[in-house]
């Protein structure tokens, strides 16, 4: 079937739908508004670059074409980013978070930060809200991509969910409230859920255990690796928001485990969602 502009328009409309649905929780989160202008500019820029890279990767995995073309994926990523920026800008104006007596740097900062979840949502919206897609080609891509691809999907999933929680004060507050026992319990629970979600309870798109893999190798290769990814992504997101500045290592560890909980759920379900 040829890709006409009409079909592309439908895809674009789905992308806008995804951007709104996946972006709305953070569009209505107070901390996101102030982080938009108060977080370090260098960190914000790095976050945007990282997001674009993730978008290119996501385009590869949920793309329809079998042939890998970096140009196509880059075009997709830019389009998703554009959809994310436009959706965020319009909604922030409607919600009166952005008014026109603000300075440009403030407006751009707020829109830029919100465009991270919105553009990932735009990319996922195409798949989640669409019906016609080539599941076989997609499965083949995931198989071809191998272990590196698995890790990438875990990074994307962890980023999306961690990003949804990290801006809120609650992450820090929860870390303050918890005793070391709570933290250990939450860490164990995260690893357990990560393993169960991916290998045991039969979600659609679930992975089968790698051939010849024993429980232990699967656990080490995928579950522990996934939790490692979740912790790293959590750290990156917390650092981006300046939550780790001047905080003691022990307290950072607590925050990592707290944010690592949603991040590991994101890592576990990314393979099901993307």
């Amino acid at each position, binding site marked *: 079937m040829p*890709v006409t502009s009409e079909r592309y328009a439908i895809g674009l409309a789905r992308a806008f739908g995804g951007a709104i649905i996946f972006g709305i929780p953070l569009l209505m989160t107070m901390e996101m508004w102030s982080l938009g202008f108060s977080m370090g*500019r260098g960190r914000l820029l790095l976050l945007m670059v990282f997001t674009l890279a993730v978008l290119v990767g996501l385009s590869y995995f949920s793309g329809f074409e079998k042939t890998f073309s970096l140009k196509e994926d880059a075009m997709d990523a830019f389009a998703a980013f554009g959809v994310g920026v436009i959706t965020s800008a319009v909604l922030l104006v409607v919600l009166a978070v952005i008014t026109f007596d603000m300075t440009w740097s403030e407006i751009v900062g707020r829109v830029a930060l919100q465009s991270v979840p919105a553009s990932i949502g735009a990319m996922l919206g195409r798949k989640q809200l669409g019906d016609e897609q080539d599941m076989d080609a997609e499965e083949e891509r995931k198989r071809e991509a191998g272990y590196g691809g698995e890790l990438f999907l875990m990074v994307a999933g962890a980023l999306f969910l961690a990003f949804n929680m990290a801006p809120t004060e609650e992450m820090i507050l929860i870390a303050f409230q918890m005793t070391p026992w709570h933290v250990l319990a939450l860490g164990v629970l995260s690893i357990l859920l990560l393993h169960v979600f991916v290998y045991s309870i039969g979600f659609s798109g679930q992975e089968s255990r790698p051939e010849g893999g024993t429980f232990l190798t699967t656990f080490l290769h995928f579950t522990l690796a996934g939790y490692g990814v979740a912790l790293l992504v959590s750290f990156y997101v917390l650092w981006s928001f300046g939550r780790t500045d001047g905080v003691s290592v022990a307290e950072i560890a607590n925050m990592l485990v707290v944010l690592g909980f949603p991040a590991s759920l994101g890592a576990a379900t990314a393979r099901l969602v993307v």
Partner: protein
Amino acid sequence: MNREHKQGGNETGKVAPQVPWLEWVASGVGLLLVLGVFGVIGWQLFNGATVPPVITVEVENVALVEGGHRVLFRARNRAGEAAAQVEIEGTVSTAGSDPETSRVVLDYIPGHSEQEGGLFFRRDPRSGALTLRATGFANP
């Protein structure tokens, strides 16, 4: 964003996939937004975004309202870094009596931006000397 194989002409079946014009438009707009957003953020990086807050307060308007006098002010952050929990203190001092002080806390003033607020006084600020200043801030 929707793309599938276009098999070109039926007879060849090997023609390179053709990109619909709308895809060019969408990606083009996206690319422009990327450059614009990155540009503005990058520009700030090298233009004093890391200078700590300097806050000045100007009186905008003084009015007699129910229960006292209302002073509207505009607090301006002249530096690049954002300030949080900025306390604005206003004092009306008239000769022969203790000065009257009112305070308010502004949640945030972003860099190179301004926030408006108001203070209430029992005494008429115009009857004496009215001073407004920021007493402190926290890093966000």
